[in-house]
């Protein structure tokens, strides 16, 4: 195809010729083209099919508001559906396909929908597919989804990279049209930190599409000069291809920068960046969007917004038609005819709805005032129009202008409402703007170029003074004069054919009438019922038209009818950009334990606990199932010695004159009486009396404690203690700092743990049972002087220690412990074996400390001191938490020991039905005990302590299982704790 519709002029670079494909046909365009302008250059009119009726559609705009010309861009995994051809920059090698048709674009079999349209009006789906209900998921929905819709996803992972970022400025200027550029010049020259963002790839906005002059230069030249000056300013950040899509609280904006979308190959750079912009002040210079007029068959390819026609002719050097007509209700539409004539393109007629004298003289064109276009002909491209005067005219492009709507969207993101300006027939920003925002230019209803330039300058000036700066004497640029008179005109009542309001959603004037008749009269209902203003364009060209027609139906004013709420994003944001880097293994950070490298060498399986990766089990040769490894680790530890990395437990360093008194208040049990050099188990309650966390706390000195928390609650316990310290007892002398990361801590457990450690701990430290008894702690050195902390505590129920060294020695330490225990066949054990051993010992852990259990439930009620005030003490005594038969933590063993128990099963009286009414509690944790050689469980059951030996049924209806279990002591191994103290 050749560029039959390419004309002279414009801002395209004719030395840069690009080849691209549309529906597999090779075409050519230039640098500076959009896909839309290049398609127009190549004479393409039909570019897609409509959403519901599969009507042939062409390009209707030249910007982000495009409702029709959406294409599938790129191929394979890189493909992106619903890309607006009007904003897709052309590059060499671009490939695009049209969407939403079966068979070729020209012969879409689904176009049958168009002839069925009487049955497919608003609310059709709601009314038709009600029954049989079973068909919805299997039949109706898939068929509707396949036939009504837009482009399709590749189904593959998005191969592109995305990034995010943060920017700060005094002033964010949104839009680099005349008012935005004027404002940026004024603020930039004054030295303010400015960000100027524009969605286009060149700055200047409408200046690039019009033939106005500014300061005696062509508008586009002035824009180029201003832009060049701004690029030279260090305090101004120029961001093209950047859409500010949302206004959030306190001057925060979301912006999407498209970095490589205009390149064939992004060379590994992020495709897009999602910026969070913090601004002290913002100036919205977002311009305005031209809207259409509803008349019969106003959706045909070749029917286009009048301003868009000027963009194509003036900026891109292409013409959408050879014999163009204009249909307008305002003076601005006439400029299209004038600009076309200036380019030597035939103008058939200018049809103006207003019965006034023609505002301009357009030579060799019929100018018909007080007249309307009532219908058009030409299924794949308009060729004839019919007028209310009875005339019929041949035309291959109809430029329509229904007036301009200020782009008020971002002014409404904080629930601000625009107000109707009757004189200009448009909504302008209301008084309730987002914090720090002001509006200038067409976005504020300043509809002439001069007023926009002035408003931009003045807006920046007043922002400068609010920032305590003064403008550096910038002058207001002066523009050529123009007229912007308009009188509201919405739809042609004489039209008998369907007249489109929302092209993207196939909503017609009749649909709006029907919505009104069926009672969906508020604009929000109208939107949901007809889908007016939904989907990717969010009704940028349709909304005002739709609600004006609704106002007519209801006999209300447009002001009374109001608008729907505008929400972010202003234009669609790819999911990939919202995800940014957070994909795959980068979804979130991970934390490694000091023994991670060692564990990897030992082929450990890893489990994610929070952000931590912990060794779950350590398989040795011949082991194929995790249970084999886990059972072996448990046996080896209980028979001799094992080592486990417990660094992940939270460690909080607590110092201060009131440290002991503070602990007495945050723990349910007493710490003031703990001797220096001793450790005590501590139980922490929430204020509501429920258990929050548990752990051990060691007294390292009179005013110095080291607390451990569970891995999961390390952060929340620290936060809670800071709350207590700062908000509840602000005069206590107590200071907290996390030391979790400081120490590599290992549990060394088993009957040979002392002997193992005696090989490692320097000889001057006596760690015999006498000198270092159960629950002792102290500072020692290992391996000839490496500082360490030793705690004689046990989670496994065995003789055990935890030993900590500075993290830098963590890797050396695990290897040293393995070496020291070699003669005792020491094994590393993982979180599975850790879990088995604590269940065998009946220790509560996360499954039991689940946010619903009290100390009494866990059999720890005696620990809650009645003598002192502590968090949770008072409310733990309330009636509701102390029923006659409380849930109590006990052990469970299957009657048939060959059966495995399942956690989550609920207890009912033996043989009773598994119903809520019969529920007596639930199984919290289960494990296979390699010591007892059968499955064991811990659980909470009513009055459990008094029911030892009773058989109950553990029912798990989800797994259709029902197992008879015996209530036993929770201490399956060493119930008297003898092993701990040897």
């Amino acid at each position, binding site marked *: 195809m050749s560029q039959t519709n390419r004309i002279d002029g414009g801002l395209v670079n004719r030395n840069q010729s690009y080849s691209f494909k549309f529906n597999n046909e090779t075409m050519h365009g230039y640098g500076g083209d959009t896909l839309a302008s290049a398609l127009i250059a190549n004479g393409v009119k039909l570019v897609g099919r409509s959403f519901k009726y599969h009507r042939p559609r062409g390009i209707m705009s030249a910007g982000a508001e495009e409702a029709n010309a959406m294409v599938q861009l790129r191929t394979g995994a890189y493909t992106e559906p619903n890309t607006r051809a009007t904003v897709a920059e052309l590059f060499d090698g671009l490939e695009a396909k049209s969407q939403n048709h079966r068979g070729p674009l020209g012969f879409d079999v689904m176009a049958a929908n168009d002839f069925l349209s009487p049955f497919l009006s608003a609310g059709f789906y709601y009314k038709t597919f009600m029954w049989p209900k079973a068909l919805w998921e299997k039949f109706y929905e898939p068929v509707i989804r396949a036939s009504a819709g837009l482009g399709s996803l590749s189904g593959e992972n998005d191969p592109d*990279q995305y*990034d*995010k*970022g*943060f*920017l*700060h400025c005094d002033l964010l200027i949104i839009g680099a049209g005349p008012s935005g550029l004027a404002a940026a010049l004024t603020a930039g020259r004054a030295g303010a*930190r400015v960000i100027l963002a524009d969605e286009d790839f060149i700055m200047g906005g409408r200046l690039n599409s019009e033939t106005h002059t500014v300061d005696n230069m062509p508008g586009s030249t002035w824009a180029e000069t201003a832009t060049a000056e701004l690029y030279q300013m260090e305090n101004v950040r120029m961001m093209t291809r950047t859409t500010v899509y949302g206004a959030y609280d306190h001057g925060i904006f979301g912006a999407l920068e498209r970095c490589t979308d205009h390149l064939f190959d992004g*060379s*590994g*750079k*992020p495709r897009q*960046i999602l910026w*969070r912009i*913090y601004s002290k002040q913002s100036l919205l210079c977002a311009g305005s969007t031209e809207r259409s007029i509803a008349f019969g068959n106003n959706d045909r390819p070749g029917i286009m917004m009048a301003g868009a026609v000027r963009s194509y002719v003036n900026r891109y050097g292409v013409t959408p038609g050879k014999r163009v007509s204009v249909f307008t209700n305002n003076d601005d539409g006439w400029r299209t005819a004038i600009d076309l004539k200036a380019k030597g393109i035939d103008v058939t007629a200018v049809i103006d709805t207003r019965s006034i004298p023609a505002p301009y003289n357009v030579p060799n064109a019929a100018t018909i005032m007080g007249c309307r276009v009532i219908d058009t002909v030409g299924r794949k491209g308009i060729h004839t129009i019919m007028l209310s005067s009875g005339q019929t005219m041949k035309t291959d492009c109809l430029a329509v202008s229904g007036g301009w709507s200020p782009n008020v969207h971002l002014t409404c993101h904080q629930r601000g409402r625009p107000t109707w300006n009757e004189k200009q027939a448009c909504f302008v920003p209301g008084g309730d703007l987002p914090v720090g925002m002001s509006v200038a230019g067409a976005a504020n209803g300043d509809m002439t170029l001069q007023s926009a330039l002035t408003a931009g300058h003045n807006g920046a000036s007043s922002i400068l003074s609010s920032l305590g700066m003064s403008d550096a004497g910038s002058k207001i640029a002066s523009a050529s004069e123009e007229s912007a008179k308009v009188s509201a005109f919405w739809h042609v009542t004489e039209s008998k054919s369907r007249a489109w309001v929302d092209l993207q959603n196939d909503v017609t004037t009749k649909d709006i009438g029907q919505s009104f008749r069926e009672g969906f009269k508020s604009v929000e209902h109208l939107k949901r019922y007809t889908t007016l203003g939904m989907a990717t364009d969010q009704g940028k060209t349709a909304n005002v038209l739709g609600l004006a027609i609704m106002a007519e139906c209801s006999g209300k004013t447009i002001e009374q009818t109001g608008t729907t709420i505008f929400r972010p994003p202003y234009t669609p944001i790819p999911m990939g950009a919202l995800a940014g*880097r957070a994909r795959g293994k*980068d979804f*979130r*950070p*991970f*934390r*490694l*334990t000091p023994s991670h490298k060692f564990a990897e060498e030992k082929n450990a399986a890893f489990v994610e606990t929070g*952000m*931590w990766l912990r060794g779950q089990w350590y398989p040795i040769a011949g082991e194929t199932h995790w249970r084999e490894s886990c059972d072996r680790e448990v046996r080896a530890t209980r028979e001799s010695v094992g080592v486990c990395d417990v*660094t992940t437990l939270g460690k909080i*360093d607590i*110092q*201060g*004159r009131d440290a002991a008194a503070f602990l007495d208040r945050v723990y349910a049990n007493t710490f003031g009486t703990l001797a220096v050099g001793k450790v005590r188990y501590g139980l922490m309650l929430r204020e509501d009396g429920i258990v929050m966390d548990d752990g051990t706390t060691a007294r390292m000195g009179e*005013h*110095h404690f080291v607390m451990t928390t569970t891995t999961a609650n390390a952060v929340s316990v620290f936060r809670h203690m800071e709350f207590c310290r700062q908000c509840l007892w602000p*005069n*206590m*002398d107590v*200071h907290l*700092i*996390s*030391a*979790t*990361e*400081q*120490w590599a801590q290992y549990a060394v457990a088993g009957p040979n743990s002392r002997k193992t450690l005696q*090989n*490692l701990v320097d000889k001057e430290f006596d760690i015999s049972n006498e000198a270092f008894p159960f629950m002792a702690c102290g500072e020692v050195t*290992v*391996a*000839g002087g*490496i500082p360490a902390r030793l705690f004689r505590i046990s989670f496994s129920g065995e003789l055990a220690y935890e030993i900590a060294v*500075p*993290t*830098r*020695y963590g*890797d*050396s*330490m695990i*290897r*040293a412990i393995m*070496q*020291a225990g070699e003669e005792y066949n020491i094994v590393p054990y993982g979180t599975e074996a850790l879990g088995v051993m604590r269940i065998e010992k009946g220790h509560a852990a996360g499954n039991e400390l689940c946010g619903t259990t009290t100390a009494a439930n866990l059999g720890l009620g005696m620990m809650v001191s009645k003598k002192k005030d502590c968090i949770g003490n008072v409310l733990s005594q309330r009636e509701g938490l102390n029923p006659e038969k409380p849930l109590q933590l006990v052990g469970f063993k299957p009657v048939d020991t060959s059966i495995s128990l399942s956690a989550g099963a609920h207890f009912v009286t033996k043989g009773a039905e598994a119903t809520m009414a019969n529920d007596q509690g639930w199984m919290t944790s289960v494990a296979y005990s390699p010591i007892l050689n059968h499955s064991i469980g811990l659980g909470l059951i009513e009055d459990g302590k008094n029911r030892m030996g009773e058989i109950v049924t553990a029912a798990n209806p989800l797994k259709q299982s029902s197992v008879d279990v015996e209530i036993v002591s929770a201490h399956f191994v060493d119930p008297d704790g003898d092993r701990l103290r040897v």
Partner: protein
Amino acid sequence: MSNFTFVSQPVLGGFKQECKGVSIIEQTKLGIVSVACPNDGDAALAASIQKAFGCSLPKVSGVEVSDSGTMRWLGLQPQQWFVLFEHSAEQGAPLATIKDELGDTAYCTDQSDSWVSLAVSGPLAITALERICPIDLHLSVFPVGTVARTTMEHLGVIITRTGDEEFLMMSATSSADSFLHAITLSVKNITA
């Protein structure tokens, strides 16, 4: 039994990536001690620090450098500072360097192993950090001698400006790999 090998390992193995735009160098010989001021002990602490190190205490978000220039005090939170100084494993416990001097006037906790520290510098350092750092690093807002604790890529980070184009960034040891990745990817994304 002294045939154990104990090696003091830098968290990231002494990571170093130097290029024109941004350099990233792990600081492997840094002692870090947190110093908390006992209630009503401000004057006593200030005096002991002045006497021992010739340094006054910065306010929160401020940085003070000792007379000798070898010690940097970061104001992290009310009543709490981090003191950073050059220290190697052979010198023994870093805690003693501070605690022995301050005695009862402060509560000290060793933090040397809690943090991985990266010096990030170069003309493109700020451009790279824009991708992850929510704090405004403009010189007029975050001048040399300022410290902030914030979050980058879900990780807590202490960032100190040590020069016009130089930052010291500290984050938790256990997530050092993720932290390094966050920074190197930022550099890659602006320079690739």
